């Protein structure tokens, strides 16, 4: 598959207001591809930089260095009409469905917003048809949502409406930033199924989430981000099935499951890793040392340090192959 969007050595630094003159690296030299028509999941916890990356792709924030290449062009050079052209093909949906609506207007104003820039000469009835087609594509009944105010719609309806808005344009890539985390669990999976049907119709999706099970359900490829650095990435089934980086393993063991208790997952992870499970910044359990319960080992991990400036500007560990289509950041042996 050809690469639709390429993220190339993107870094984002924020200056802190401390007297130390520190910089906080939200992203450090992140590089990966989004092929057309595929779902790429960006998994990270808080502070990983995943939302920052989504905003950079959407041109809502600028990268400090590096490039984002869309169809062979660097998006940071886009302005005015060219930027509008970019937005015709790349759109975003965010975490809080209600906040995306201006509370002063009706919900379907989000469609009107698009009309003036992209369909200024389209006559009324055709515009109406277009809207209804987009609503049906997201399984919304036009009569249920048109003319309503945002607070009259449910969270699921609000999110679907925002996806419908994106479909009015010619989107090739949808950036979905935690779009289900504020929805009830019983409606979450319907939105995910919608994304999958859109993907089958050719849409590429950058699915940003902290929830590993959602990522595993929808995506073709997975990129795992930690503190602004990619630690593992590759084909989803491969990465989840054979996690190589200690951080990934840690995440997988910590995910609560319905049918398996935590302790048993821990044991599996230990067996899989060959008997020496380590937290990335926890105390080392040298082989042969006294066995400590994972709970105690986890506790030794706090408090977390914030990186110093020097650390911020260091190049991150390089990615090495670890399996078919599977890359892992090098860790110290």
């Amino acid at each position, binding site marked *: 598959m050809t690469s639709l969007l390429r993220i190339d050595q993107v870094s984002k630094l924020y200056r802190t207001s401390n007297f130390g003159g520190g910089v906080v690296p939200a992203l450090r030299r992140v590089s990966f591809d989004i092929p057309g028509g595929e779902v790429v999941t960006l998994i990270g*916890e*808080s502070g990983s930089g995943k939302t920052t990356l989504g905003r950079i792709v959407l041109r809502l924030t600028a990268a400090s260095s590096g490039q984002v290449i869309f169809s062979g062009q660097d998006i940071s050079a886009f302005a005015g009409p060219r930027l509008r052209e970019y937005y015709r093909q790349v759109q975003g949906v965010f975490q809080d469905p209600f906040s995306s609506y201006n509370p002063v207007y009706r919900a379907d104003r989000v469609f009107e917003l698009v009309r003036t820039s992209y369909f200024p000469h389209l006559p009324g009835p055709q515009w109406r048809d277009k809207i209804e087609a987009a609503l049906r594509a997201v399984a919304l009944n036009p009569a249920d949502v048109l003319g309503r105010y945002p607070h009259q719609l*449910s*969270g*699921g309806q609000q999110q679907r409406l925002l996806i419908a808005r994106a479909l009015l344009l010619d989107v090739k890539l949808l950036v979905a930033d935690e779009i289900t985390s504020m929805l*009830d*669990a*019983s*409606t*979450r*999976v*319907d939105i*995910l*199924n919608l994304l*999958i049907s859109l993907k089958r119709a050719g849409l590429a999706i950058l699915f940003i989430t*902290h929830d*590993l*099970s*959602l990522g*595993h*359900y*929808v995506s073709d490829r997975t990129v795992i981000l930690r503190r602004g650095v990619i630690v593992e990435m590759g084909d*989803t*089934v491969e990465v*989840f099935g054979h996690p190589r980086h200690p951080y990934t393993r*840690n*995440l*997988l*063991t*910590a*995910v*609560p*499951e*319905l*049918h398996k*208790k*935590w302790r048993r997952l821990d044991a599996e992870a230990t067996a899989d890793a060959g008997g020496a499970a380590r937290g990335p910044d926890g105390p080392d359990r040298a082989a042969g040392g006294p066995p400590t319960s994972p*709970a*105690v080992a*986890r*506790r*030794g*991990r*706090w*408090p*977390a340090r914030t990186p110093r400036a020097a650390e911020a500007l260091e190049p991150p560990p390089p990615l090495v192959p670890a399996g078919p289509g599977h890359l892992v950041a090098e860790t110290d042996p």
Partner: protein
Amino acid sequence: MSVRVDHLSIAYRTRSGDVCPVDQVSFSVADGEIMGLAGESGSGKSTLGTSLVYLDMRMKHLGGSVELDGRHLPIDDNRAMRPYRMKQVSLIPQYAMSALNPTRRIRRLIADLLRSHGVRDREVMTELNRRIALVGLDQDVLDRYSFELSGGMRQRVTLLISTLLNPSLLIADEVTSALDVSTQRAVGELLIEFRDRGFSKSLIVITHDLAILAQVADTITVMYAGRLAEKASTGTLIEAPLHPYTQLLLASLPEVGARHDQVTLTGIPGRPPSLANPPDGCRFRDRCPFAFDRCTTVPPFEEVAPGHFVACWKAAA
């Protein structure tokens, strides 16, 4: 029995009138039991949890009683509840970790709180120092301000504060929601440990996340639209639920290992009824694939198997 709630009803004043997010709710929690209270938006679980500790201006006690360790708990009278709070029953409200006073160091915060509950500092402070290490925090955390701590650390501090006086009942409202997965696990395990060490006799863990409850809770109670739908031991509820809502809810949760091309998950169509205008009879019947004519009358929440309660005509049949 540690806690017994009997036909409790709480009304809530809103702009559009009075709603009843807790409607004739009855359950009990045994000594040493961790009960999970699960529900989605509009279920009333947070109101239920909060009402056991205090009633804010908008809440009104309509009926029913609460017993703690055999004694009546005067939840309808905020002033009468004062001697019970923090000592017998303690609440960690939602967003507690964001509500720590940023202008005070943690130690001072705790001291102020204890003093306002009439507890002398010294006896409890030594206990505090002991417990700090237990939750995996350094001693110097006490001398920091809340904004210097990460989310997980703050959540641990709130857990610590609310169990400092060894309450009989700890109610934890969405304490794992805003946390990273690894911190979630640490906090979840901490809840179990608090129960094991007796820092709190029983716990009610309120959350929308059934998976966390599957790890942490001994029994799970599912709430829907202000009423209890099902209560059973964790294993039974997860593996063999009887209420259609529980069944559909579990069927809509993706697990690590499930992919869209192997498993089709579906959500529950429709949305929960507005509590301002609830339907008659079973509140789930509009969305329930098994609804039949009997569902227009309210199904009683009764025991259909030892320790397994359901409010459903189909399940009771």
